[in-house]
């Protein structure tokens, strides 16, 4: 157990270092550009160079990186040029919003996908299976923004039941819940497409196994065979996949956030990148990667817990 933890912690640190260095290098490779950005396009060359020296940007890359690492360790993530606030605050605020969205979506995706995936896989090539297969394939094929547009055109433009944006601003007549319905629906539908097909595939494979034949020929009712023998085995691999979806839900939903103007983490990163808000982007990348690695670790741990053959 300790070995497991140590190995993964080491990997986390390694990944963080590599990624943060790459992002840092990418952004700050030309020190002049940073200062020019600060000063604006009409600044003179001398002003730019003055600022460069002032900010210490003329030092070698590695030194600046070490300096940056030191600052991060102390908790100082810098100041966001785009949002005009400390980076830490900006990230926290947006992360919280995304967290709300992610939690709601996750709570829907897991039972929905499991239900459909198991129902499809337990009787392969049945009509239900074909229907679910087509459904999940189509859902996974429609880009999130297209799903957003389709759903919005029905529920916002045509029926007028739901708001077209989810800015989380209380005014405008739409409750918080109503604002969240469409973004969550889009995420759930898109992501389920993928997760359902994974669960279905795993279930189909398990149903071919000889121990299912043993269970059936023991005279167990079909329900018992599925619930007690098949599902437990079929969910081993998908659990890891499902946990990895958390990763997607935090950063990958930038598209949905953009469609519905939701002030989330992904959108924050996009604006930071477009605006060349370096401090924000660097810190955001660190957060995203840490989250990714942590979910990876959780996935591995879950795998070990579920499969007694690995535990040994």
């Amino acid at each position, binding site marked *: 157990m300790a070995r497991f933890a140590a190995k993964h912690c080491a990997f986390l640190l390694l990944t963080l270092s590599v990624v943060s260095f790459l992002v840092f290098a990418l952004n700050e490779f030309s020190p002049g550009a940073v200062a020019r950005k600060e000063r604006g396009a009409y600044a003179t060359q001398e002003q730019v160079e003055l600022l460069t020296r002032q900010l210490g940007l003329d030092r070698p890359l590695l030194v600046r990186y070490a300096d940056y690492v030191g600052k991060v360790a102390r908790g100082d993530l810098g100041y966001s040029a785009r949002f005009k606030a400390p980076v830490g605050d900006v990230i926290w605020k947006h992360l919280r919003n995304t967290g709300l969205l992610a939690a709601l979506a996750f709570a829907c995706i897991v039972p929905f996908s499991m239900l459909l995936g198991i129902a499809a896989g337990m009787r392969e090539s049945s009509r239900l299976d074909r229907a679910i297969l*087509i459904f999940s394939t*189509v859902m996974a094929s429609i*880009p999130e*923004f*297209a799903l957003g*547009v389709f759903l919005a055109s029905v529920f916002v*433009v045509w029926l007028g039941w739901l708001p077209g944006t989810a800015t989380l601003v209380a005014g405008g007549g739409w409750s918080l819940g109503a604002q969240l319905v469409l973004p969550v629906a889009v995420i759930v539908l898109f992501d389920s497409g993928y997760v359902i097909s994974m669960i279905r595939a795993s279930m189909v494979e398990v149903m071919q196994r000889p121990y299912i034949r043993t269970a059936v020929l023991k005279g167990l009712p079909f329900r018992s065979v599925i619930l007690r023998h098949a599902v437990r085995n079929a969910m081993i691999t998908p659990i890891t996949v499902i946990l990895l979806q958390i990763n997607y839900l935090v950063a990958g939903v930038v598209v949905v956030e953009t469609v519905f103007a939701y002030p989330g983490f992904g959108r924050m990163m996009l604006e930071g990148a477009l605006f060349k808000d370096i401090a924000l982007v660097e810190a955001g990348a660190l957060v*995203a990667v840490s989250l990714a690695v942590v979910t990876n670790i959780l996935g591995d741990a879950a795998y070990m817990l579920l499969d007694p053959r690995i535990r040994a």
Partner: protein
Amino acid sequence: MTPTPATAEVLVVPAPVAARRRARGWWRRLTAVGDSTPATVGVAVILFWLTMAALAPVVAPYAPNATDLAALAHTTPSKAHWLGTDHLGRDLLSRILWGARPVLVIAPLAVLGATALGCLLGLAAGYKGGWIDLVVTRACDIVLSFPVIILYMIILTHFGSSAWNIIGVLTLTKAPIIARIVRGLTLDLREREYVTAAKMRGESSLYIMFVEILPNARGPLIVDMCLRTGYNIIIIGVLGFLGIGLPPPDPDWGGMVKDTYGMMMVWPHMALVPCAAISSLVVGFNLLAVGLREIGLRD
């Protein structure tokens, strides 16, 4: 442990040997696509878009960037503009047809690049093992643990988004996935006895990797390539939608949605049309992948 008789007990024997010899291998495999409904539908959709994209200069009624000021008064579908026009008066049908071209060039190229790179890495890691495996696996893990959208954002805003940059970034981010698949297949296949036989003949590692192992990884790879193409098309659309895709004014389906979805309350068709286009194309590739998987299992 004593092994069991090789031929399975009741597996149905495939079509008579003589008939097999007449039909050439690849032709038979091609026509097998017809056996599976998802595959047929998928191929039909893909062929449709390929034809449309190839013939766009001939078939499109207008130039893609030509604005028709007269139509601005009436942008919804009409006889003059079958799918209507966008907010700048440009014919949507033409823009859709022309917009298919970059997508159908970039996505497959990126997939080919990722597959080539991924195969190389996966084979080397799986077959050679040792430190090559360690380095490759860790590198793949690092790349994969990065939320790709953020990666795209960072790289494309920094280096600018041209077609080659997009292909490059897609290749780099997709190659690790393929490398993992190929590595898994290689780990399995390298234990096969024919690989040992090849070693005993003194074949070089390169020969074994590319002539003995790789051809047998074909099946899962081809299915994966279809899936990747579909997914790449989605990503290209997303990049366009986020504003970091191909630069305007050339039509880019994602970009078209970005420009027009704000006007959905008034003119929903402007955003709906490109959304439908991109969805249908991706559905085609995904259905093909589903169908190919079915066929592969049936064999």
